[in-house]
């Protein structure tokens, strides 16, 4: 049981990393990006190609891939989200859904159905572990992922709270029209925020490739986990996202202990339990949150 809890918390670190970008984008731009998972897979393939064809280690590859993802995020905002947002709340969701299908199938066309992994390129980090007690081991990579999750979410939170760009992002999220009147270029700020979000997706994709396998159609599952973690943690709250990732992963690992099929089922069950609790429990601030989740004054 102790082992399940420890492994659950570590897995939660990964879920927090993948949910981070989704939650950030929702809180800043009120956009649910359904291409989120596919972008993570795209990032993983970029690292794979760099390692496989050009012999660049995935760690070095990050220095190439993350700037590429930043440009992808900037372009995504300018070319897809900004335009589709003018047509209402639902259109960006449909647009990113379409984008997800395009990315998935382009990757499939290019790379085929083989599952890939970055594990062979990162040496013994892929399987090495520290022994905590005689029969509890923690993977070094899993600990690293959790540490990055804390740094990433904490860093984003600090950036939002204490830097000029963070204040500009929050002001734009609240009222883009007035932000313009105090000298903030709302378009650029939104594009920068999208770039930041997609960079975190790139980090998540790198970790996915290192700790597991992926193929062209793995994006949907990653999106699902990211979405569940973000909602459990309270969409739009970055520290909540870390808690949400850990709760989701704990449910999954404990579920898997009870029944071999229990991994996904328990995760979904907790997700729905939290969702319905927020919808139907009266008097809590959660109701407000769910209204924001469903699109403000819905």
């Amino acid at each position: 049981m102790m082992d399940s809890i420890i492994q659950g918390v570590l897995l939660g670190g990964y879920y927090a990393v993948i949910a981070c970008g989704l939650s950030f984008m929702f809180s800043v731009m009120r956009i649910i990006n359904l291409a989120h998972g596919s972008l993570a897979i795209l990032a993983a393939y970029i690292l794979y190609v760099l390692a496989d064809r050009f012999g660049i280690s995935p760690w070095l590859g990050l220095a190439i891939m993350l700037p590429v993802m930043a440009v992808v995020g900037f372009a995504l905002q300018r070319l897809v989200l900004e335009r589709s947002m003018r047509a209402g709340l639902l259109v960006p969701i449909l647009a990113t859904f379409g984008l997800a299908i395009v990315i998935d199938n382009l990757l499939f066309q290019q790379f085929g159905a083989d599952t890939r992994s970055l594990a062979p390129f990162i040496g013994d980090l892929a399987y090495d572990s520290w022994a905590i007690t005689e029969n509890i081991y923690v993977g070094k990579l899993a600990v690293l992922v959790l540490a990055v999750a804390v740094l990433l979410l904490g860093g984003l939170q600090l950036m939002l709270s204490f830097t000029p760009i963070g204040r500009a992002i929050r002001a734009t999220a609240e009222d883009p029209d007035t932000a313009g009147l105090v000298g903030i270029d709302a378009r650029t700020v939104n594009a920068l925020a999208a770039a930041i979000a997609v960079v975190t997706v790139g980090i998540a994709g790198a970790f996915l490739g290192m700790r597991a396998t992926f193929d062209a159609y793995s994006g949907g599952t990653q999106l699902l986990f990211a979405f569940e973690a973000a909602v459990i943690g309270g969409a739009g709250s970055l520290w909540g996202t870390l808690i949400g990732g850990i709760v989701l992963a704990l449910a999954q690992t404990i579920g898997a202990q009870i029944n071999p099929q229990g991994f996904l089922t328990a995760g979904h069950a907790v997700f729905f339990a939290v969702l319905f609790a927020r919808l139907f429990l009266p008097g809590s601030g959660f109701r407000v949150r769910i209204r924001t989740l469903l699109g403000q004054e819905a």
Partner: protein
Amino acid sequence: MTHLVLENLDVRHGLLQAVRAVSLSIEKGEVLALIGANGAGKTTMLRALAGAHVPASGRILLNGSDITGIPAHRRVGMGVAMVPEGRRLFADMTVEENLLLGRQAGRSGEWTVERVLDVFANLKPRRNARAATLSGGEQQACAIGRALVTNPDVLLLDEVSLGLSPLAVDRVYQSLGSLLASGTTIVLVEQDLGRALAVADRVVCLLEGRIVLDEAAAAVSRERVTQAYFGLQAAQAGSASS
């Protein structure tokens, strides 16, 4: 020196033409009060000056150069700041954070966050309070402060007394006093005619998007302003010409 010029400005909200062929030139350091009934086009004109609303036709010149197509956020950098109607503070941010936003325009000058907190003394103890928790007067002071931190040459004030108690309005205008004397060009929309005439050098009255009165505040009588406000002049002129 002419600071701000409007040439034949037309501004529309969809099919509704809110400002019709308005031409106006404003001198440097002038305090101009814009008055008129609800729907006369005052706010729309102010928003067009700030760049928040793109005019359908006509030009806006700042220090002689055309700024008609320049968006609001860049005009702030050129020294045009607006205090929007209803304050429009960022409710989830603190007073200090709201004021700090004004710094991002990148204009340095005498107005800093500290100076604003000194001038608007009622804000000082609320420095770290969320803007949503402020009283109306404090919110208005914060909104004006936020515009001041951009160190504007032209300050556009839209109904700063709206929804405030008379006491709070006094305080806001009192703290504006030093600003009014500092040589900043000010265009203000004010419902309170007495207040407008007391503060301004010049009064411009809008009726259905057109200028119906443009006079020095010291010379104009209340009756003339009232007539212009309700369109009595225009009606008389109309019947005289027909």
